[in-house]
């Protein structure tokens, strides 16, 4: 099967490409890129006026299966992914049972393959039962298909355990993705510690509880000489520490999520539980620091931390509501609207942070349109204006604080392995 995407603006950061070009896809691979490509056997789709990018990769999602299928399943999660323009997702291990064993890794991979939509890459738990006490069977987990290890949602408090995790994992050349939070400092916390938490009478989680662990994990990884990836950076101090670490040549990558550069803790003011996430929404100063960090490449990646929750988890007292929001179907639009259209990032840079950089962080052979690469492609309609409507989400859960928000720019088509999986909002 051959397919030509004709006359789109092809942007491929890996090859510093930004030009009006045709792409020929053959046997699931990028066969040719150039002007005026002709092939009488190929189906031709005109993508004139649209951006053709490497398939987007969301390196931080929660697919909830096994264990919490009422929130999301792998099937609904990958539908949400391709709808949002994502050809690959990497899913976190806080399932039930925890993804600390090869059985769950294999289950996630096989369910992902069966759906045959977005690629699903499991991230296994760095510790057994996500307890932070003993390291899990890291070698076996990687052999069974895990692309990284993480302590997301259950951060490892014991520095000795974390040191050994970095040390042991080093041999496999995969990163440990760390959720940076000193849990002793955030007991019962439900939002950022700030003037707003004072006024609302909600228990705060100070940004320093994040930044000290960012430093600890970078220091440990540096000492060991192992790669570390900092998940969902939310505050200025963390950005400053990562910037410093990169200047020292330390092997660190980092991500932030759209809600951290789109919203501040002011959004919590009506006790809206869809503004409750961990780390929490911070202040305007933090948002400015995150944008600066994205601009100067201190923050390499944008990831959604897609965290679906059912109505029964969110329609509660603020203190009792679950942390997290869905993001797969809003991330691209929010990034284009808040960062590209407002000139924080060029569209080339935004695409890099949504494709090439996460591929590099996870050591995946994707995120580029290089000839011979797997044809994972996202076509973006940058001029499309619309209001976010959670009722149209493919995700099982609708917990988004962005419902009703006006945005500009949307995924037009998602191609995975040369096959069109989504076109104009329809999943194929």
């Amino acid at each position, binding site marked *: 099967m051959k397919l030509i995407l004709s006359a789109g603006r092809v942007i491929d950061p890996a090859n510093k490409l930004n030009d009006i070009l045709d792409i020929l896809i053959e046997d699931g691979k990028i066969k040719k890129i150039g002007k005026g490509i002709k092939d009488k056997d190929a189906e031709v789709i005109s993508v004139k006026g649209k951006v053709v990018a490497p398939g987007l990769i969301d390196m931080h999602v929660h697919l909830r299966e096994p264990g919490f299928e009422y929130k999301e399943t792998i099937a609904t999660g990958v539908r949400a992914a391709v709808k949002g323009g994502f050809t690959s997702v990497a899913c976190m291990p806080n399932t039930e049972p925890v993804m600390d064993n090869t059985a769950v890794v294999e289950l996630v991979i096989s369910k992902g393959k069966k759906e045959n939509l977005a690629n699903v890459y499991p991230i296994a738990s760095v510790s057994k039962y996500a307890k932070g006490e003993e390291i899990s069977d890291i070698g076996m987990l990687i052999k069974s298909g895990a692309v990284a290890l993480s302590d997301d949602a259950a951060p490892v408090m014991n520095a000795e355990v974390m040191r050994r995790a970095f040390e042991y994992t080093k041999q496999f050349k995969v990163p440990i993705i760390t959720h940076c939070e000193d849990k002793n400092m955030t*007991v019962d916390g439900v939002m950022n*510690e*700030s*003037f707003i*938490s*004072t*006024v*609302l*009478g*909600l*228990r*705060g989680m100070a940004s320093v509880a994040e930044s000290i662990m960012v430093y600890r994990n970078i220091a440990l990884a540096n000492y060991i000489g192992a790669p570390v990836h900092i998940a969902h950076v939310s505050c200025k101090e963390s950005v400053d520490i990562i910037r410093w670490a990169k200047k020292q040549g330390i092997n660190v990558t980092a991500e932030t999520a759209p809600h951290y550069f789109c919203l501040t803790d002011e959004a919590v003011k*009506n*006790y809206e539980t869809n503004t409750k996430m961990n780390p929490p929404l911070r202040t305007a100063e933090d948002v400015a620091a995150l944008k600066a960090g994205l601009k100067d490449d201190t923050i390499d990646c944008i990831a959604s931390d897609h965290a679906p929750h059912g109505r*029964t988890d969110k*329609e*509660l*007292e*603020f*203190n*009792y509501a679950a942390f997290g929001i869905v993001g797969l179907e809003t991330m691209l639009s929010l990034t284009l609207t808040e960062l590209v259209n407002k000139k924080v990032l060029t569209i080339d840079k935004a695409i890099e942070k949504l494709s090439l950089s996460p591929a590099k962080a996870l050591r995946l052979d994707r995120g580029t349109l290089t000839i011979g690469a797997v044809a994972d492609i996202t076509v973006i309609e940058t001029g499309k204006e619309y209001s976010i409507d959670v009722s149209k989400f493919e995700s099982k859960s609708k917990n988004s604080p962005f419902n009703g928000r006006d945005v500009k720019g949307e995924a037009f088509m998602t191609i995975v392995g040369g096959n069109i999986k989504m076109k104009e909002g329809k999943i194929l």
Partner: protein
Amino acid sequence: MELKRKHLIGLEDSTPQEIEGILNTAEAFKSIFNRKIKKVPALRGRTVVNLFFENSTRTRTSFELAAKRLSADVINFSVSTSSVAKGETLIDTARTIESLESDMIVVRHSCSGVPLLLSKTLKSSIINAGDGMHEHPTQGLLDLFTIREKKKKIKGLKIVMVGDIAHSRVARSNIYGMTKMGADLTLVAPPTLIPKDIEKLGVKVEFDLRKAAKDADVLYMLRIQLERQKRNLFPSIREFSLLYGMDEDKLKLANKDALVMHPGPMNRGVEISSEVADSPQSVINEQVTNGIAVRMAVLYLLSGGETNEIDSFGGQGN
């Protein structure tokens, strides 16, 4: 005076005129207390539900009595939070209550934001009787009423509020009420019990009670929850009471006619010594009595009542 609002969630968004109006209305109701029959027919046929998710005999009794003196039908509905965690959600419980055809729901909950959530979900008027660490507006109002009654004014008074500001809904409502009414308010506590950026609310912060107490017109002592010590917010009860407890010695630093206030229940010998609590300067028991008048005023005004009609009620309620 007519109150143009349906709910009383907090004093944060109230105006000085509204507060003044509520206090004047409470004054009119308080004058009824001296009559033989203390009941008026102002809310006859209306149903007031006391929906308490947190134990509180005092506040619930005060609201109950206030509603009864207005001739409303009163239902007390207590829900223990533990059973909520297991079974029915907050919203379902509240909808069940409203299905009993309530007109006003007085709600107390250990979680901040619950009254606001209910006001968006239900048709009844919602009155916040204390939500988490957020607000306790009728406590703030009854404290203002007591100060105004004793001092004949609030504006320009030097008020010192002492204790666990961080976790106190009483403190927050009083901060809004007192500053809106023009008082000069200083908060005193160890730095661990001062919440972030509280100065932005127009108050001063002082760590030395002796310094702050000088020339004070009102000394407002907050209840300290003893379990805060377990979280290292202060080192020991002994040290707390030595530095932040009101005793005769520190009281002498204030103006001679300074009022001593406390929202109750008191920890005698911790935040307040027995000598001070029982001194002639203490108005702690009057605060409780005034609470009834203020809550009558709030229930009455939120149900659409007007202040100038109160005198016409006479003392013939049933």
